[in-house]
Every structure is written in structure tokens, then in C-alpha cells.
């Protein structure tokens, strides 16, 4: 065998090693995908994503907690005073500026996910005798985040306002969340 034939052989083999390794690595990565994707929400979980709430029994100044996608959703019938404080807050004072009117569809009904945006605890403030924080809304006991009467973060480590889910009024007293 001549020298050039040997080098030809060697370069052919090197090319085969690299290309086969690449194809094999891509195949292994693709094969891992079904295993990873199986941990995402399943079709039945995704289908169960709406909850209906009856507003009729809730009195002014009262809150209820309903479950949506396994998380608590706060539904509060706000008093006129609470709506006023919420509207009076200056946007430049807010860590996560958002107007109250962008957080509600009807001013008296505040609907939001009751999960602190810091590390996922459930803030206090739903019951009449709960601590409501310095801004009269909600107070997260885990790391001391204060939310106002619009559920916006005002003080403490939480970076964002309480999340407002998608919802729609099915009638004046019925809301569908999700």
C-alpha cells in the first residue's frame, strides 16, 4: 500500500468517525426528548384549565379563595375606599408600575392568583382579621412582601404584582377563570 493510500484511508476513517459521532449524538439527544417532554403537562391537565366562580354570595368587603389549576385565586369584592386608594397610588411609587384599571374588568371585583411573586407562598389578607400589610391589601408572611388593595407589590422582596389570570364574565354574577 502506498503512503498516499494510507493517508487516504486515515482521512476517510477520521471523516467517518466525526460524522457518525455527530449523527449518533443527535439521535441520542432526540431520543431523550420524549422522556423530557413527558414531564410537561399532559393533555388532560391542559384541558382542565377553567374554573367557574359564582359572585352572588360574596358581600362587599369580603374575599373568597377558589382553586384554579391547583393554585388559589383571590376574588375580592372591593369597597369604594379600597378602589379609591388603589387609584390614588402614584405609578412612579410602584416597583412594578401598573394602573388599577388595567388589573380589573369591573372595578369592584379584583381577581388574581394568590401566589406571592417572590417565592410562591400564599399571602395573608383574605380573612377579616388577617394582617393586610402596610398598604391595606395583602401581606406575605414568608419574607414580608406588602401588596396594596389592587394586589400590586409595594414593599418587600417580591418583584412583581400578584398575577391577574385570564377570565371572563359569563353573566353579571358568574366568572369563568382561564
Amino acid at each position, binding site marked *: 500500500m502506498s503512503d498516499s493510500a494510507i493517508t487516504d484511508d486515515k482521512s476517510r476513517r477520521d471523516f467517518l468517525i466525526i460524522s457518525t459521532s455527530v449523527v449518533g449524538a443527535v439521535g441520542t439527544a432526540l431520543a431523550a426528548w*420524549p*422522556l423530557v417532554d*413527558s414531564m410537561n403537562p*399532559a393533555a388532560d*391537565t391542559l384541558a382542565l384549565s377553567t374554573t367557574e366562580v359564582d359572585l352572588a354570595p360574596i358581600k362587599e368587603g369580603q374575599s373568597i379563595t377558589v382553586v384554579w389549576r391547583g393554585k388559589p385565586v383571590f376574588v375580592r369584592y372591593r369597597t369604594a375606599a379600597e378602589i379609591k386608594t388603589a387609584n390614588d397610588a402614584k405609578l412612579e411609587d410602584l416597583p412594578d408600575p401598573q394602573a388599577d384599571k388595567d388589573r380589573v374588568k369591573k372595578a369592584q371585583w379584583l381577581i388574581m392568583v394568590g401566589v406571592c411573586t417572590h417565592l410562591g407562598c400564599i399571602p395573608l389578607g383574605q380573612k377579616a382579621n388577617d394582617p393586610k400589610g402596610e398598604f391595606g391589601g395583602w401581606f406575605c408572611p414568608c419574607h414580608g412582601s406588602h401588596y396594596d388593595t389592587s394586589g400590586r407589590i409595594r414593599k418587600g422582596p417580591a418583584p412583581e404584582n400578584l398575577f391577574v389570570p385570564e377570565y371572563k364574565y359569563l353573566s353579571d354574577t358568574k366568572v369563568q377563570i382561564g
Partner: protein
Amino acid sequence: MSKFFENPVIKWVEYRLPIFSFIDESVGSGYPTPKNLNYWWNFGSLAGLVLVIMIATGIVLAMNYTAHVDYAFESVERIMRDVNYGWLVRYIHVNGGSMFFILVYIHMFRGLYYGSFKEPRELLWIIGVFILLAMMATAFMGYVLPWGQMSFWGATVITNLFSAIPLIGDSIVTWLWGGFSVDNPTLNRFYAFHYLLPFVIFALVFIHLWALHVHKSSNPLGIDIQGPQDTIPFHPYFTIKDLFGMGVFMLIFMYFVFFAPNFFGEPDNYIKANPLVTPPHIVPEWYFLPFYAILRAVPDIWFISAKLGGVIAMFGSILILLLLPWLDRSKVRSSQFRPINRQLFWVFFVDCLILGWVGANSPDAVFHGVPFLWIGRVTTAYYFAHILLIIPLVSILERTKPLPESISAAVTANAKSGAGE
């Protein structure tokens, strides 16, 4: 390779944990391997691949499975219908079980043909038999988990085997069940063991490989490695050969997964378990069929009832494999040089296939006028006779062919003549 070991980072790690040289000496260029291994030597690595696939898919299935008699069947169907790629993961796991047994059975028949179990690899073989036993336990308990009709009745029949034990049998069965029939406690403990045992298998495989690396692979000629001229490094020669084998195997495996996923299964297992109705034909999964045939073949013998005798014969048929290294007295390993043993090996192989066929049929059924019960009895008798009588006798009486001088000499002669066995 030496360049790799001069790298300062590698050197730093090596000094503290010699993992790279360990890998190199196990499956790298530092592991000398007989140069004449044929493709029958691929099946060990293939079984290892399937073990990894089974554990990976099994863990994902466990994330979605509910071990409760009211929900198990539905949770499996939820995996099939709603979980992303759940059908794929489950079908890989289900067919992987069958593939695992095919590979391991071929691996064992290879050992039998080429005398791989002989001195000094007796422990290697014995550990292998324990791996088979652990696989059987794992497969049996895994089959119960979907809680279909075959799951339930298979579990009932197999656990009832233990009632054959005199005096304490019934207490053992109640203890196995955790109740008075196969029920929720049984399902839960089977699930726990089904999750545990694969890791036991993994540990056994590690010891199996450890034993393998002491005296290295056997080879088709069955003669010892005499020096470096008889070997080639494992890497790259056998890494690429094993990888190519894996490619071919995956093609077959994936064909079943995607195009015939229920080929090895029983339709009855898609009916939810019903403790009040037994399906007309209970059959175990195919890989247990020969043993099932042995179980049913034994009649009442003297004071031993057919029930107890069947159970002893079934477990005995595996346990006698442990004695094989001492039953076979021949100094020559490979059947290539043992003409009579080679013929009888194929007789034994066919005997095992017939046992499997008998296990799939009802003992009352008749084949060309011969009841299956009798076919099962004859083949069972031959199974034991082959291992306990024929192998020892042949190994003493047989006149073996002359062995080649060395592996390298045989390989060179083969290359010259252009003929290959």
C-alpha cells in the same frame, strides 16, 4: 491515548480518582480482547443497553403511574392517551422487556455452545444465572402493574405456587398477598419491588463485568489467550463492533415499538382486572412459557403432589444451571471441537423451543393426536436429562477434535484458507 493521560487536568483527577484509567482498562484500548470474537459476543453489551433503556423509561412511567387497584389500569391508559409521548415510553418499556429476554437467552445459549461457563469463568456464569432470576422476578412484577386481566390472574397463579410448600405454604401466600387474595397491598408491594430490583440487576451486572474482566472474554475457539498476539484492544475494535450491533438491534426493537407494539402481548391484558372472572386461557408472557410448560408437566410422583412437583421442577430447571460448570467435565470449551456435544446442543435448543410452544397451549389440547400434556412431559424429561445426564456423560466419553495452537495461529490459518466458521 497516552496524549490524553498527559493532559494536566486529567492527571490531576487521575491522581485522586483513577477513573480514566479504569474506563480505559474496562472498555478502552487498555483492555485486551480475543481477536476472534464473532457476532454472538455482541449480546452482552446489547442486554446492557436494554437495561439502561428500561431504567430510563421506567422512571418516567413511574412518574405517571398510580399503584392502586382502582386507578392503576386508568393511569396506564392515561399514559397511553394524555401524557406527552406516554405511548412511546410505555411501548418501549413493554417491548424492551421482551427484547431483554431475547438477548439474554441468546447470550446464555452462546455461553452454552462455546463453553463460556467453564473454568475459570464459573462465577461469571453463576452471577449471570442470578441476573436471569432477578430479571424474571422484575418482569413478573412489572406485568402485574397495569392491572389487566392477565396481570391479575398471572399474579394469582404464580403467587399460589408457593402454597405447594408443605405446612407453611398457605401462610407464605397470605404473607405475599398482604391479604386473602391478590389485592391493593399486593399491587403496592409489587410496584415497590419492581422499582427496586432493576438496581439490584444493575449491581449484579457490575459484578458480572468485574468477573469478566479478571479472565477476559471467552472466545469461539475456547482456548486461552497466550499473549498479546492473540488479542486486540477493546477500543476501537469492539466498541465499534458493539455500536454497530446496537444499530441493528435498535432497528428490530423500534420496528416492534412503532409498528407491532402489542405483538408480544396478550389482548386480555387490555381488559381491567376482574377478581370474579378468570380469562379462558391464562398464559404467561412468552419468556416464561418453557418454565410454565415444565410446571404443568409433572404428575404426582410417590408422595410428592403434582402441584409441589411442578413448582420444584420449574425452579429446579433454572437452579440446575448453577451446577453446569461442574456437570460438564470436558476440558475443551468450544463445541466447535466437540462434535457430539454440538449436535446435542441443537437438540437441547429445539427442546427449549418446543417447551415454549407447549407452554402456550392448553394441556388438554391435542396436536395430531398427541396431547400437549405428553409433549410437555417428554420435553421436560429431556430438559433435565440433557443437563443432568447427557452433558456429564458426553463430556467424559466424547472424543474431541484437536485444538489449534493459539488464537492467532487459527486466525491466520482462517484468513489464508478464506473459510470461516
